[in-house]
């Protein structure tokens, strides 16, 4: 089945680290560069994330995401470098185009910030199953219903897409035009919505009943099929990350 989760199943120590520690790492990678606004720190954070992604053997999977991010960021660099109101210091000139230092630096800051966030999130998304992440949050006290909602979206959306394609096929088999101009496609789309939406509503009702009889709203203390994932050095890593955040804060307050 097509899955909309980006999880890549590999064997690596990054995969073995529990999801909560990865969440703390994200907090670290986002907060520290904000608290200590220096390029070096940002570069270090991006660097750590990239090294971890490489260890997790998922670096190639990041290419499409990073390409997209770069596309957006290049526009930012060009616009800020050329047109930022505070632009004064000319960096270089290409014919009628003038690049300014202030804008470029500002764009670089934004770029680095986005890269730190994206690369840190990629570690979580590419090396953790959504279900595993949610399960560890439920163990930490998140409501199982919210957990269920999040996880089921990953499964049920692909199911709905499958329903859409089945119905499109059926309609095409009966001679309906489903390809061509935007208008034709739109006309084909409308009758599709009825069965898909209605089907989804009925399914949701039935699924809710099936969950009920499987004790979903039971007041009993829940148990889990899998033991909670614990990585040998989790505590150490978490402590170091929190210490780094605290250290950054102290530095900021003192200087």
């Amino acid at each position, binding site marked *: 089945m097509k899955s909309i989760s980006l999880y890549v199943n590999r064997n690596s120590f990054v995969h073995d680290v529990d999801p909560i520690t990865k969440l703390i790492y994200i907090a670290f990678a986002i907060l520290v560069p904000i608290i200590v606004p220096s390029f070096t720190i940002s570069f270090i954070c991006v660097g750590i994330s990239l090294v971890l992604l490489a260890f997790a053997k998922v670096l190639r999977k990041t290419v499409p995401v990073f390409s997209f991010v770069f596309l957006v960021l290049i526009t930012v660099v060009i616009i800020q470098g050329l047109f930022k109101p505070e632009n004064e210091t000319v960096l270089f000139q290409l014919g009628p185009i003038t690049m300014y230092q202030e804008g470029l630096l500002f764009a670089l800051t934004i770029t680095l910030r986005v890269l730190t966030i994206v690369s840190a999130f990629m570690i979580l998304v590419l090396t953790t199953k959504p279900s595993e992440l949610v399960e560890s949050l439920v163990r930490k006290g998140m409501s199982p219903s919210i957990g269920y909602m999040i996880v089921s979206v990953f499964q049920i959306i692909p199911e709905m897409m499958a329903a859409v394609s089945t119905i499109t096929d059926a309609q095409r088999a009966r001679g309906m035009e489903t390809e061509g101009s935007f208008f034709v496609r739109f006309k084909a789309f409308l009758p599709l919505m009825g069965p898909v939406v209605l089907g989804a509503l009925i399914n949701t009702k039935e699924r809710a009943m099936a969950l009920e009889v*499987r004790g979903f709203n039971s007041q009993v203390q829940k148990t889990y099929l899998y033991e909670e994932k614990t990585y040998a050095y989790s505590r150490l890593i978490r402590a170091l990350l929190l210490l780094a955040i605290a250290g950054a804060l102290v530095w900021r307050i003192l200087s």
Partner: protein
Amino acid sequence: MNKIVVEGLKYKYPLSETLALDNISFSVKEGEFIGIIGRNSAGKSTLCQAIVGLVPHFYKGAYGGKVLVDGLEVKTHSIADISLKAGMVFQNPFTQVTGSKMTVYEEIAFGLENIGVPRTEMINRIDEVLHLFKIEHVKDHNPFDLSGGQMQRMAIASIIAMKPEIILLDEPTSQLDPGGSEEVFQAVQSLKNQGITILMAEHKMEKVAQYCDKVLLLESGKVVDYDTPEVVFSRNDLDVFGVTAPVYTKVCQALGVKKKGADTYPVTLKEAEAALKEMRR
């Protein structure tokens, strides 16, 4: 001992004009296997849902009378409480897939996690039902990737693993081929032999006749008959209720061959064979 007692049960779905269940009374003893039969819309599914508490707790609607499940009154207990006593398998296997689990194995664990079964016990029970329903080879597959028949077996296995004392099955073999249905009936039979009480809504009359202790015949939400398969299938007005007797019964009825020393017709192949041999002598 009576495991299920239904007394004067009346129920009307919200926004509906007519009663879906109309003054239903019957009781089921521990370890009995009851077949619920009747035409489409007779109220079979509604009755099953009334025993696990979905009627009235899930739907609301107008409710009267009393249903006791192993001593618990359904009206005053939550579905979660009742689900520890009575499990239900629904008609459509697809909508019973939770959608929150990645494998068949985890899917079966879902109910067990909710009711707090300890891990080692959980694993034992899952392995047991995977084996019982012959789905071990797909235990690591995504639940949505199963065939209709496998999905149906997984749905039954998921409920059986919760070890309820009462199991309700709503047309559990609709997606199965003859071999698959036979396997499910045998698995259900083995549960019955362990003392589990079973109610099954089913359209395959040959199977109902062969496996059930008693048959509950419904029509427009009313009980028409509640008796042994022989007595119910020997009625000559079955077609009025949209039911056809097992083919063996029909043949014997046409030939006027009754069971030896009884006023009823044979309902299974074995009985028919015996009665016909008797006649030839």
